[in-house]
Structures are given as C-alpha cells and as structure tokens.
C-alpha cells in the first residue's frame, strides 16, 4: 500500500491552505455574492466580491467543504484579488481547463499561482467538482458585475 499518489494531490501547500484558509469570512463591502452547492457531498461555498471600476478590490469566501474545496477557494482568493474582472474571468477558465487535464499556456499557469498545483486533479476526476466549486461561484459573481 502506498499513499504516494495522495501526496501528489494533497501537497503541503494544499493542506496548508485548507488548514489556514486565506480570505475566509464575509468582507465588509460586498458588491456581488454567489452561493453554490456541491450535491454530491452537500457542501456549500459562498463567494463575496467587491468590484469597483472593473477591478476586484476585495474577494473572500465562506462555507464548509473538503480539503480540496477549502484549499482551492483560499488559493483562488489570493490569485484573483486585485485583478480586473476580465483578467479574473480568464483565470477561472484557465483553472477549469487545467483541472480537466487540458494543456494551458505556461504564463496562464503561472498566473494561477498556488492554485496551479491542483492541476494534478485531472487524475482524480471525481474530485474536480470539489475544486472548481468556488471558481464557478466567482465566475458567476464576476459575470454579474458585467450586466
């Protein structure tokens, strides 16, 4: 028996984000918020953003979930904070592509910061939902600012 492959998925950085999530809790000024539900485990993730002049001034999340979903949400807030809405949206798409095992450009990968380690999720297809939940919520929130 071996947990080598598990190590691949749950690298130290992932476990660290899950244990000590960044930007967890509601922010004071919220322009958009979206709650998404993962029907397979029953977990909810809520994403809060504050957008001014097409720029994400603040972003945070709330809710329970597994290591993957907590870590992914935490990493996401690090990555998206301060970016423009369109930049953030393309980062979401890059993340979805990455977790599905699709090839993405090296600079796109870099732009995903810590979250790029979740690329190994392509080998754990049943967990992709866990990792992408927060990103889907963010995407919906960001799209909401465009209307």
């Amino acid at each position, binding site marked *: 028996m071996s947990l080598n492959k598990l190590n691949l998925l749950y690298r130290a950085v992932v*476990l660290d984000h899950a244990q000590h999530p960044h930007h967890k809790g509601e922010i004071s000024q919220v322009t958009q918020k979206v709650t998404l539900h993962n029907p397979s*485990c029953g977990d909810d993730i809520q994403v809060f953003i504050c957008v001014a002049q097409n720029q994400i001034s603040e972003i945070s999340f709330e809710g329970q979930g597994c290591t993957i979903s907590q870590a992914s949400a935490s990493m996401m807030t690090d990555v998206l904070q301060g970016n423009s809405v369109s930049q953030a949206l393309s980062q979401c798409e890059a993340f979805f592509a990455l977790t599905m095992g699709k090839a993405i450009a090296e600079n796109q990968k870099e732009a995903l910061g810590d979250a790029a380690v979740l690329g190994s999720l392509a080998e754990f297809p049943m967990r992709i939902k866990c990792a992408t939940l927060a990103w889907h919520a963010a995407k919906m929130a960001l799209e909401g600012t465009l209307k």
Partner: protein
Amino acid sequence: MTIKRETLRKDFPILDRKVNEEPLLYLDNAATLQTPNQVLKKITEFYQKSHANVHRGVYTLAQEATQAYEQVREQVAAFIHAANAHEIVYTRSTTESLNLVASSFGELVVQEGDEILLTIMEHHSNLIPWQQLAKRKKAILKYVPLTVDQTLDVHAFKQQLTEKTKIVALAQTSNVLGVTNPVKKLVELAHQQHAYVVVDAAQTVAHHALDVQDLNVDFLAFSGHKMGAPTGIGVLYGKSELLKAMPPIQFGGEMIENVTKTTATWQPAPWKFEAGTPNIGGVIGLGAAIDYLNHLEMSWIAATEKKLMMHLLPELQKIEGLTIYGPQTVERHEGIVTFNLAHIHPHDVATGLDMLGVEVRAGHHCAQPLMAALGVESTVRASLSFYNSIAEMDRFVYALKMVKEFFNHESE
C-alpha cells in the same frame, strides 16, 4: 449452477482486479452488489439461445422467452413468499417501483388533508415521490424522527399515526444507519389505522430472507442490482387486490388488451404495468441471482455478514476521533457502517482510501434529510457483503488509520 462457499470469490472476477495498483477492496456493496459469473453466463446463454420478444409471438422462440420470463416471476414470488406470482411487477429499480406506487396507488387513495407518514431515514427514492404527491394533493407529509441512539422512534411512530394517515412509507433497512426497522410490528400499527404500508427493501433483500405475507406489507420494492442481478431490473410486490385497483401509468406494447382510436383497455396486473418491451435479459439475470443466493442460503449469508461486522465494528470503535452513526451495537448493523473522522472531510477520507484500493462511499447517500437530522453534511459509508473476508476488514481498518495519519500529520 455450481457454487462453493469456500471458493465463491472466484465467481466475482472483479474482486481480483487492482485499483491504484492495490488489490480492490470493494466496500460499496450497498450501492450495488457485484454480479457473479453464473448470472452473467445465464444471461449470455439466453441471448445466444432463446432471445425473442415476450408475449408477442405464437412461434417457438417467443414461447421459450415468454416462459423463461414468467418463470422468474414465480421464482421471485417464492423468494419473498408472495402468495401469487401475479403480485410481482417487474420495474427498472427500487426507485421506479416506489414511483409507481406513489403515482398510481398514491394518486388513487390520497386526498387533500390526508397524511403520509415517512421516516427521517428514508432514501430519496422513498421520500421525493411522496413529497411530490403530497404537494400535488395538498396532503400532509410527516416524518418519524430518530431516538437518541439513532434508531427509529417507534413511540413517535405510534403517536404520529392517525386515522388521517393513508400511507406509511418506510425503509426496511436504512442505507445509512444500517438498522433494520421492526416492519411487522409497524405494519400492524399502521393497519389498525387503515393505512397502507409501502416498504423499501432495497437494503434487505440480499441480506435476509423476506416473507411479505408474514410481514403483511401492502407493497414492497427492491432492485436486482443489489442482489447480484444486473442493473435495470427491479421488483414491485403488491397485494393482488391493490394492484388490481391501480391504473397503469405507462402505456403501449403488450400491456394493452384492446385499442380503438379513442379508447383502450388494459391487461390484468402485473402485465398492465409492464408497458413496452421489458428488460427480458435483466429478468433472466434476476432469476439466476436468486438461484445464486438460494444456493448460498440466506441464513448463511446473514451469518457470514454478521461475523464480518462483529470483527469490524469494535475495531472502528477503537479509532480515536471516529464517530459511528446509528446504534453502537453489532446486532443493529445490517452490513452497513457509516462514520466520520474528526476534522477530515468524508471526500478526503474516500479519496485517501481509494488510493489504497479501498472503495467506500462518501457523501449524503441520497438521504439528505437524515444527514440534516444527524447534524452533518456528509459521511463515509462502508458496506460489506458475503464475499468480503475478515482479512479485508483488517485491511480496511489499517487503511483508515493510514489515511487518518496522513491528514493529521500533514496538517500539523
């Protein structure tokens, strides 16, 4: 059919495969039981020798297929001790069986203001059909809660039964808690109030001998795939006079007696419920699965699974930070044990175990209201079967400890 208990694992080649480079340890038997070679062989033989559509031809091949199809009905009736083979309706699954009762019988007997009594431990398949019926009919949906030891509160059941209760729907065995409810007694209580009782036996049928006449249930549903038959075949048992009163809800093919442009009349039950070409191969497989279980003997199966649980449960109870849901006694766990590890999400536990070749279920197990009652979002469930071994129980416990260590250690 040749089955030897000593070597029965050979009947299930899948048990020899590897998962993530580890030997498969399949502990999701409550989701679906693996299918023995004898069943697969019987189905293949049927298609290679006697396949034809049923109830439609006067020719020899059609006759052979029809006879095989109807003989399994007798076999199912005998297996659950129904009075009559005509009380056996073939469906796709437990879910379809329960939907059929709700849409046809429920629609017939439930009126505005009537009550439908469920238990809080129902699988969604025995819950949403009633919830939707109640909504359509403006009927009242009531749930029997759990006691403090997380079994069905029989006292509350009695209190919630009223003369307005038209239908009682309950699982014989919970797919989460693993407890078997005292169906016979509950049926007696329900009948005193003239309520009809619909029993979901999905988690019972492969583990204990069933006697629908002794239980005196009005309806009983189960799935073939949870007892060694292929997917796509299920059974609804219903008392003759109730099936007779029920209108069909799907139309076409051989369920029809006579058709004009504007009218149609139906065949008698059970055929009026079997519209279109049925899953004939699935029925043949169901017959072979019953043969298989009968050869093993239901009493041997129950005893074997009990032995495994007697070994497993105390070992799990020793693991620090592990919470078992449902009762804490071996006697009340029908092959199923559901738990959580403190501070580790069930999905992480399941992924960790999967890396070690151990396949368990994580999630809400299609029982979200029960999860809410237990105060959790999701849990891990291990469910065993007669082909599992004591050594596998040990390996499972060891793997669980490794996973626990992995997450606890890494996060220090």
